[in-house]
């Protein structure tokens, strides 16, 4: 009952003659005007996702990874939030210039989001079937009865046992893993082209996390969706991502294909992160700890934002903001997809 029909035709690439990336974020800035000043949460972020590709956005709390996602979805609280500059191109069209009406057509139908905390993202007083069916009623104008049938199909698809019997249950009657499946089902309802998953498994136990990530990967393959996975867990990223963007203080400090990043980080922050996680398969001595704390976004350090915590910082780092430049092999040959925002990336990757 809960198996996925493997023979179903894969939805063909959808309408529009647009070539190039599915989603492209260009020089995005987001700031929050607060009583204490302007907090610059995102300072010029660039990334792109293709259909069928998984981009992992890695960063600690306050690095701007979730704010970027909210800006893409158009669910940023404005005010206090503000997008002073930047473009978010979905299939070549700038979503920031669209009317609310147009954006609403994209949200849910073309781009969907999975949130971290399923319990607080689901409405506790409505049955899950009603909430799943809402997607069909609002976007496709289905009747209540049809919407419910579709909701059951969706619950089957995300492998919730006895979907038919549980469609009228309320969120609290499901376990954490099952609730996250419902969130995934809701995001998948209209077969979007891009899914943004904001820490989808952080609240889950490891065994359930493995189930949910597998499900997500399987569905992504089936629908050939783009996936932006926002997380702080270097382990999860290594398991599923194609490429990675590491964020720090509202900027991307390093971009790389997944294998490259773990083997040879080109930014001291990435290196520090990789060194500071304990490993399951080896017992190290003392853990490497990045000294200090992530910066306060109201007063980001001058120059490279990482300089107060960086073991290699020089005077140059304290005055000049490093640009995100392409990283090359020692002999100057290209490393496709690799970029680093460090004045000393050469020493970091090759040294």
């Amino acid at each position: 009952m809960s198996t996925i029909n493997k023979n179903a035709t894969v939805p063909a690439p959808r309408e529009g003659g647009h070539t190039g990336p599915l989603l492209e974020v260009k020089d995005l800035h987001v700031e929050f005007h607060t009583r204490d000043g302007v907090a610059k949460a995102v300072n010029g972020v660039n990334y792109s996702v293709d259909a069928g590709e998984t981009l992992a956005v890695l960063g600690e709390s306050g690095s701007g990874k979730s704010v970027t996602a909210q800006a893409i979805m158009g669910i940023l609280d404005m005010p206090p939030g503000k997008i002073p500059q930047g473009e978010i191109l979905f299939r070549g069209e700038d979503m920031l210039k669209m009317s609310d009406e147009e954006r609403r057509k994209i949200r849910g139908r073309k781009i969907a989001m999975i949130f971290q905390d399923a319990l607080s993202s689901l409405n506790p007083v409505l049955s899950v079937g009603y909430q799943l069916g809402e997607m069909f009623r609002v976007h496709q104008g289905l009747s209540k009865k049809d919407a419910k049938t579709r909701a059951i199909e969706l619950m089957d698809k995300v492998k919730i046992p006895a979907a038919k019997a549980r469609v009228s249950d309320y969120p609290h009657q499901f376990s954490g893993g099952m609730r996250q499946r419902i969130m995934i089902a809701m995001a998948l309802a209209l077969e979007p082209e891009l899914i943004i998953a904001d820490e989808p498994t952080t609240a889950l136990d490891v065994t359930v996390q493995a189930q949910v990530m597998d499900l997500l990967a399987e569905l992504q393959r089936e629908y050939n969706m783009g996936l932006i996975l926002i997380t702080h867990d270097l382990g999860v990223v290594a398991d599923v991502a194609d490429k990675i963007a590491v964020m720090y203080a509202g900027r991307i400090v390093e971009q790389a294909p997944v294998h490259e990043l773990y083997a040879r980080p080109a930014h001291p922050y990435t290196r520090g992160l990789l060194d500071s996680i304990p490993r399951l398969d080896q017992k190290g001595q003392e853990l490497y700890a990045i000294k200090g704390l992530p910066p306060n976004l109201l007063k980001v350090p001058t120059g490279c934002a990482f300089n107060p915590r960086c073991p290699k910082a020089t005077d140059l780092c304290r005055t000049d903001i490093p640009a995100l430049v392409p990283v090359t092999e020692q002999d100057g040959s290209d490393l496709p997809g690799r970029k680093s925002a460090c004045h000393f990336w050469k020493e970091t990757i090759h040294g």
Partner: protein
Amino acid sequence: MADLSTNDEAVAAALDTPVRRGEPILQVRNLKKHFPLTQGILFKKQVGAVKAVDGVSFDLYQGETLGIVGESGCGKSTVAKLLMNLERATAGEVFYKGQDITKLSGRALKAVRRNIQMVFQDPYTSLNPRMTVGDIIGETFDIHPEVAPKGERRRKVQDLLDVVGLNPEYINRYPHQFSGGQRQRIGIARGLALNPEIIICDEPVSALDVSVQAQVINLMEKLQDEFNLSYVFIAHDLSIVRHISDRVGVMYLGKLAEIGTDEEIYEHPTHPYTQALLSAVPVPDPQARADRDRIILTGDVPSPANPPSGCRFRTRCWKAQDKCATEQPVLAVPERFRGQKTLAAHESACHFAEERDVVHAG
């Protein structure tokens, strides 16, 4: 309770005897905690019980770190509360230096608690937002005035802040003025204030960012050496537990599934649950992605109010046979490994225990 005073003296005498390194300081025997489920409003009648902890036994040796891992709802935090006697045990004993602390109360219990302290998970809610750091840490001295005379308390608090790597001048600040990592340091300073012998850490770093986690873990290791502490380290993150622990116990649904040294558990697990748990941990190495031995369990943890008969893991176990439904496996060295000089010969509660190295597979 008539013999309370004589009892108190006996306890006080027992507590003064030091325990040598490597000897058991805490012995937990068949510990149980059942929370009653009631029905009815006026006339409550008990209709069942949530068996949060259902027969757990282990030793904590002086100077070591015992890690306890398990999924949410397996009872690991309840064990922590029972060790502190914050919850009254339904059955079983916790011996601290030979004294059963589950039976103690009043002054004797207070004396024991001085030596067993706790560090909590969430540094955002475990510190009173209306008290300054000095008051939060100093409050312990109001409860146990014998540790520091009144005039010395302020200086003592400043010393403690210094020990955990905070500026002693921050003594008059409030918790909201600190970051998560700093707050956890305050929590640790509070735990250290009474010079305890045992610190029970309930998920002390799970609320922290990766780069800050490493700082706190390193601090805890440093303090252990400096003050000769024994830790019970409860966490769901298996990598961190491996890093800090000397021995590790794996809990499932209120019972220990397997216990042994970190090497025995991580390199030579014999219980299927441990194997599944270890194989599900994402490894930060994309090279290993393709050829890892992954066991993906189906379903969820059953309700502790109505645990499966026999082996509790059998409903999710791929090895389960009829025997598992009828016979409860005991936590002991499996027969096939008994007497052998292999690291697989450690206590494991499975009828069909066999070794499978899931961490290094591939």
